[in-house]
């Protein structure tokens, strides 16, 4: 005998699909160890043997199965779930019944068609007969053309006729409609904990005791991963705080790892960089299980730093300079000057040919010249004559360096503008100028000035070597 629990659709119950499914599975496991997660809202359990628990002596089958159904519904209601429950000799019959009839339904063996026969054929779930979507659609169209409206219409078609026209898929489907399908439940394995949690008796406000707690949880988590021959590439830390808020952090790892010490250091660096606002009352760490990294290094390839060590180093650097200032700079494909972004540092050695950044390619080797960029650019006072700069005075932000003098030679303007569809539209005129240094004894400077055309401000962007 099989029971099916169908969680009714109710947007008001506040459960997410995942939460509802977890509750349904938990509920099912309280009645049987043989549970199938059929759909997100449907579970089936094999209740053979439950009569020992739910039936008194000589009680008819229908009575104990109803009693079981009622009990399931009652416990579901206790959990805040509104469910339909059905009990039948065939799991698929139970599924169709639970999805159609409200409350508890018991279908005795042999009464399948009398109870489900008048159901609309549209309710027949093709996936239970393992029919792919395309084929299911084709059969569906045929049934519509044939005027098949109910389960019984289909069930009563001659088997040979169905087999000739719809093939084995059609036969399987017809058996499904007849309540005679044959299949094994695909059982749910009991969940393995890749989430570790601890409720604290006293709130923790310091790093050291937290470190102790984290270490304990991480050890257990890594042991679980190890037991399943898995690693993780993402750690999620959830701290419940004294003020009832939650502090969540996610650490994405470049390669799958399962070293608790590394994890601990990474978490601690992160917490130090982003500390919670109040004391901590509970700690949860979840790991995303993935297959571990398999690597074979070549004999003659220089050894790269171990990913774990590198990750810890990067975390340490991030703590020092800020997370946004660590990584590899990547030039952006735009005319916007000096536009780049920091991407995560990756230790990958590529040997592909012709993948060099076109922007960095030297197009004209004859014009090769180094340029030393000032970041940030120096604000400048520039005098112009007929639009051309003739004198410049500039200094850097902390006034430690300055440039002042007459411009003896200027080339430009070199004009660029872009991102006109965005709020941060930009436009600038650049000039390459030679500034005669007013300090005696110093040579002239070849530098680049630019004028922000929106603000009319001048800057020195850098000097040519």
């Amino acid at each position, binding site marked *: 005998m099989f029971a099916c629990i169908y969680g009714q659709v109710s947007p008001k119950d506040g459960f997410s699909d995942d939460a509802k499914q977890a509750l349904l599975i938990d509920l099912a496991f309280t009645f049987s160890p043989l549970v199938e997660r059929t759909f997100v809202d449907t579970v089936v359990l094999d209740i053979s043997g439950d009569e020992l628990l739910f039936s008194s002596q000589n009680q008819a089958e229908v009575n104990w199965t109803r009693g079981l159904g009622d009990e399931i519904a009652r416990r579901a209601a206790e959990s805040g779930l509104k469910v339909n429950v059905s009990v039948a000799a065939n799991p698929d019959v139970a599924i169709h019944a639970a999805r159609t009839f409200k409350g508890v339904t018991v279908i005795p063996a042999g009464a399948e068609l009398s109870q489900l026969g008048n159901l609309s054929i549209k309710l027949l779930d093709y996936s239970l007969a393992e029919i792919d979507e395309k084929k299911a659609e084709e059969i569906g169209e*045929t049934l519509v*053309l*044939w*005027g*098949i409206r109910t389960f019984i*219409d289909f069930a*009563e*078609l*001659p088997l*040979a*006729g169905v*087999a*000739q*026209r*719809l*093939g084995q898929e059609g036969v399987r489907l017809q058996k499904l409609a007849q309540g005679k399908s044959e299949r094994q439940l695909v059982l749910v394995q009991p969940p393995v904990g890749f989430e570790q949690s601890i409720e604290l008796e006293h709130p923790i406000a310091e790093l050291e005791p937290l470190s102790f707690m984290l270490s304990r949880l991480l050890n257990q988590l890594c042991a679980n991963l190890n037991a399943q021959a898995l690693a993780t590439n993402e750690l999620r830390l959830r701290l419940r705080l004294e003020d009832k808020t939650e502090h969540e952090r996610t650490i994405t790892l470049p390669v799958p790892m399962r070293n608790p010490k590394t994890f601990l250091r990474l978490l601690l660096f992160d917490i130090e960089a982003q500390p919670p606002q109040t004391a901590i009352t509970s700690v949860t760490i979840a790991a995303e299980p993935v297959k571990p990294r398999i690597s074979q290094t070549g004999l003659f390839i220089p050894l790269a730093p171990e990913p774990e060590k590198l990750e810890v180093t990067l975390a340490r650097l991030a703590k020092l300079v800020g997370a946004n200032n660590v990584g590899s700079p990547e030039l*952006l*494909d*735009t*005319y916007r000057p000096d536009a780049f972004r920091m991407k995560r540092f990756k230790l990958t050695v590529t040997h592909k040919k012709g993948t060099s950044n076109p*922007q960095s390619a030297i*197009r*004209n080797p004859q*014009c090769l010249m180094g340029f030393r960029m000032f970041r940030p650019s120096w604000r400048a006072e520039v005098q112009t004559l007929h639009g051309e700069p003739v004198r410049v005075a500039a200094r850097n932000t902390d006034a430690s360096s300055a440039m002042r003098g007459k411009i003896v030679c200027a080339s*430009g*303007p*070199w*004009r*660029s*503008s*872009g991102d*006109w*569809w*965005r*709020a941060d539209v930009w*436009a600038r*005129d650049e000039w390459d100028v030679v500034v005669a240094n007013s300090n005696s004894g110093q040579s002239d400077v070849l530098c680049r000035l630019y004028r922000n055309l929106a603000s009319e401000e001048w800057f020195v962007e850098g000097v040519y070597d």
Partner: protein
Amino acid sequence: MIDYIELHARSAFSFLEGASTPEELIAVCSELKMPAMALLDRDGVYGAARFHLASKKIGIKAHIGAEVSVQSTTFEDQRPKQVISIPLLVRNRTGYQNLCRLITLMKMRVPKHAKPGECSVTPDELAAHAQGLVCLTGGSNGLLAKDFHHRGHRGAQRNAEWLIDIFGKGNVYAELQRHFNRDEEARNHAVIEIARRLKLPLLATNGVCYATRRQRQVADVFTCIRNHVRLETAGRLLSMNSERFVKSPKEMAQLFADLPEAIANTTELSSRLEFTLQDLGYEFPKYPVSPDETMTSFLRRRTYEGARLRYDGRNGSPTFERAQKQIEHELALIEKLKLEGYFLIVWDIIQFCKRNGILVQGRGSAANSAVCYSLGITAVDPVGMELLFERFLSEERGEWPDIDLDLPSGDQRERAIQYVYERYGKLGAAMTANVITYRGRSAAREVGKVLGFDDETLGRLSSLVHTWEWKDPKDTTERQFKDAGLDLRDRRIRKFFQLYLAVQDLPRHLGQHSGGMVICQGQLDSVVPLEPAAMPGRVVVQWDKEDCADLGIIKVDLLGLGMMAVIEETIQIIRDDYGEEVDLAHLPPDDPAVYSALQQADTIGMFQIESRAQMSCLPRLRPRKFYDIVVQVAIIRPGPIVGNMVHPYLNRRLGREPVKYSHPSLESVLKRTLGVPLFQEQLLKMAMICAGFSGGAAEELRRAFGFKRSEARMKEVEVKLRQGMTRNGISAKAQDEIVQSITSFALYGFPESHAASFALIAYASAYLKCHYLAAFTAATLNNQPMGFYQPFTIIKDAQRHGLKVLPVDVTRSNWECTIESEGIGCRGLGVESKRVVHSVWDGEGEIVNNEGDFVDSKNLHPTPHTPHPFSLHLGLLCVKGLREEAGRAIVSARAQRPFTSIDDLHYRLPELRKDELRKLAAVGALNPLGARASRPLVFINHNHVGHIGGRDARASTRRDALWQVERVSRDAGPLYERLEEGGGSPLMPMTLNERLNADLRGTGITIGRHPMAHQRESLNKMNVARAADLKNMRNGVSVKVAGWVIVRQRPGTAKGFVFLSLEDETGIANIIVRPQLFERYRMELVNYPFLLIEGALQHQDNVISVKARRVEPLNIKIESTGSHDFH
């Protein structure tokens, strides 16, 4: 004053590589006081005609050229598929011809929409066509720039030398562009160095891509569309700055202050470029005549031969003597303008059509010519109808005449087109282009995509582009955006809106005009570049028909007209099946049946007079003679409606107001239309009479007020008109009236000759429908899509007129719809058992009469019709999704031997796909082949209900056929191979509603009862009247009607009113919805196929309509065949 001329500009006709129209470029050029400009579009002269015309108006010299893509593989650089763009300027006519031929060579060898790089000329071809052209070394895409990147100075110099070899020393200019770009400047230095070494003149250009700086945004959007990227991800595909606009000579001189010779050379080169499109060198082909004749004498002879036949003074036609004066006048002008060849070539096409039995008729202003009438080009007698020849051809206008020929759409028209190609050669004739521009939803989608909107927002944005013809004044852009949940204050949305407006009307790609053909003496490819059209065997020129006309290229429009095909096919069916010959030229002119049908607005399926608006006018106008049909065709047009001329005309016709004229002198002109100007010719004549205009000047006036109206030109003409009228002593008030009628009318007015040509076709279609309904309906169905109504409505209308319609049947139907004589076996039970069973009983218990039609005595047409000697047999083409080759294969296999079963059909036609068999089975076309059902067969014939019992009733139900189809179309496998199935199918027959749905889904039509008839019982309980009952009701009573919405209209001229046509089993009810009511019931009115309308009956002048007060959707679940909406 600095002399600088921009010699390298691209327009939007470079298709996504330029952002301004040629006119915009010229306008800026004029503002900057530049005396000339050169347009060099990418691989074409698409924009040259418009550029030339715009420049001519302003007095700027328009130099022509193109950027031509050349393969670089034979240069020293051996990299494959490198394509270089070489800017070429035309020096003289030889150069222009070479350029056109070069582009034609390139375009003709690759398919339409070839990818960049596929479309290029070889260096050898370039060398062979270099004469008369000046070559620039190009900007950043040019030959030197590319070489400079790849191989440095030496390679660049060698290529410059190569260009000199090809074009000659004086014809290569080292082009310099300065867009404030370092790389470009580095290249410029190299180019200057090479130029100095090779003694090439320097030439400054700005490589213009748009007229004004602001249009850079459009150029960037186009770049994204071209590269299928978004603005955010386009990166450096976009332009670096906005410097490629038309710069003033002063700005250019400043930019090139260090190289004044580069600026000076622009004027020097401009002065060398003698060619403009004024000097096109187009000649219309001469018609070949025997050595003892000239084209003039030949034309005269042919004209008079025809005139003697046509003007015989019989049946009210004018005498030859009366017509001769007009013919002589026309011939003299034709000879003077040397247009004999044109008339003879059109005559030759007409002769070809006549020889090949292709129906052809000239339309448009050509019908004003007695010569055209005599030559058989047109069918309307301009002498008898006193039509104005100058509307067609005048000396003053200096324009070529335009002859449009209507041909049956489809194969027949294609035959005529191919005849022209054959006769004048592939490069001697071509179709005119149709420039597809950015408009409407597609523009919204493309711009939205470029801005990176998600699909949902894109959908909302594009839905903002209404297809409604009428726009509510309150429907502001802000409101539209707000209604769609979009905030115009949002920067991106605002940007979208700006860009959407900016791309409006910019060219998107080149299409093919539906029928315009240009023909040339000699090679057309030396007049304008040719391209292959998307349709195989077709060639198009790079200009549209307006451009061709403006440049004096004569075109002949070979237009496909669905009704011509219907008339031609109807005549053929009549010939084959009725054994009668219908001569269109000699139809009885005053057929009472035709006028009776017209007066009752019983015109579904008739040409031009079937629309809802026409039908509501017909009972008022009550046509009694042919000229009334001419008026009827012309009156329901925007011109008369906007000019408020419809009601005065109808009131005068009904005697409700007196006939009066703005001035007594106009009586002769306006008498026929009761003092109301309805035709363009009348406007012309009014100007001639009132203001003393000549015919040509009057036509000039019409054009000034026509589609391309400009304020200045209108004012100028109005002054002349008023001066003339004052001279003739016409009062100021009358002058105002006359000017008012001319200005409002000239825009949309219909030429009388055109109306008359259409009226002839309308009359012919009405005659054929009234007298040969079966043939006419069959031909109409065979030529779908066409006309105003869906086939469903046409069938129902025909049935209401008593036509028996037989279903699609693989054992009898041809591919096309055919007609069957009633004598064959449709007269009742017992004549021919097979036929009888098939026609009386469709196997599923439906109540049918003995002809296969459904009995519903209440629903028959209220006016009794003479029984038709023929019934209509639906063809296999009615089955949606059945391929023509499959359908024709069924017919030809059946001709060899009848099919015995569905198995037999499948065995003999394995090419029939399963889905096709299913479709045939679902619409009942396989019923006669299906295995007999095991159930007792019941038939109901008239009042007799009985069992077929022992009769050899082979007819089965659709479900039986569907059951078998599934079996035959599947490999049974070894287990079932030999299994014989007996006793029919276990499936239940389709219900009435299922069959109706299957019919509508499978064919879009049903010969069974109208869907509304199925609801009649419940509708009766709700006191819903039938459409046919409305005419017996009083004006003003409250009434409920219900039906299937077959037409929804919101015409631009109706101030927001919406008109619906609701069809039920008895006919069509017309509904009028006020704008406020429409707003209230918009959802119901737009989305529901079946509606119940409650309102007040309007019954005036035999025109019946219901003014809606309440709208209610009807919950009828059937497959909708769609309605004719919002036109």
